[in-house]
């Protein structure tokens, strides 16, 4: 435990107070700068807890921001610049996890959940309707019944039994 806290201490020292993106970092070319900002939002500040390097004021984050800008100025595409950082720090540095075997569940899970949910709803409602149909043989409403029903419903509506 003591060891871990020592590490934390070191890391917190690294995060000496300097504001996130500083004026001297900003590139002259607004197009490049906005690309740089875009990339920095997708890179994790490794010494902070859960911040992107764009938000963080740790020195390492600043170094990485400068590095990203340097790569972009050198003519890298966004992908090349990201790959450059990723080669050094691994997948962990990417806040948007790459789509690969180990993250299929992550990326396709949500869609899977929705479809599974729809499937369950369809199956159960079918069964239920069948059960209900078997239980109450429904006869179509006669016209007088229909008008009475409508009137009743309108009243219900008036009472605002909605929420």
């Amino acid at each position, binding site marked *: 435990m003591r060891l871990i806290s020592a590490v934390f201490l*070191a*890391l917190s020292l*690294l995060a000496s107070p300097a504001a996130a993106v500083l004026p001297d970092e900003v590139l002259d070319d607004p197009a490049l700068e906005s690309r740089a900002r875009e990339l920095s939002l997708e890179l994790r500040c490794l010494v902070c807890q859960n911040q992107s390097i764009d938000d963080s004021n740790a020195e390492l984050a600043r170094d990485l921001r400068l590095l990203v800008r340097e790569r972009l100025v050198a003519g890298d595409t966004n992908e090349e610049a990201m790959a450059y950082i990723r080669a050094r720090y691994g997948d962990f540095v990417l806040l948007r996890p790459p789509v690969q075997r180990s993250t299929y569940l992550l990326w396709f899970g949500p869609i899977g959940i929705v479809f599974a949910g729809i499937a369950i709803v369809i199956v159960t409602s079918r069964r239920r309707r069948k059960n209900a149909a078997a239980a109450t043989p429904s006869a179509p409403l006669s016209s007088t019944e229909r008008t009475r029903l409508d009137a009743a419903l309108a009243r219900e509506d008036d009472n605002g039994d909605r929420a």
Partner: protein
Amino acid sequence: MRRLLYFLPLVICLGIALFFYRGLDLNPRDLPSALINKPAPEFSLPALPGRDIQRADDGLARTDLTTGKPVVVNVWASWCIPCVAEHPLVDRLAKREGVTVHGINYRDRPDAAAAWLKRLGDPYAKVGKDESGRVSIDWGVYGVPETYVIDGNGVILYRHAGALSPEILERKILPLVKGAG
């Protein structure tokens, strides 16, 4: 079948609990290096001036890692408190175990770094000063101290982030150094 569906939430919940139980022992901050089993990056750093022991220190470069003998590279700084804590172990590694240990002095003032070595002892064969931190980024350093084990051909075998402990030294670093030699 339908009954089984009702057990699904329970199964999922137990699964998550199991993961949590295993996860409690893990430190989420333990990051593996992206460079394990890959050649160390190309670099060349100027020597740290003002060191007490005048060895043939002409700076640290990639060529110092490909001498055929395994070496340890320790990234440190004088402002880093865990570095003080682990320093006796680095010292032991170099002096008692006879391992070549190079240092990378990360984002430091040279005079402060030299004074630090004077005060605590200087186990390093060569110390490169990385004032901008740029070379350290190439190494994937995210905090000091970090310790790398490199085989004789310049391939990174192991990285430990944070202060060394006797356990790490004996269980991980020494076997690797001895094995790779």
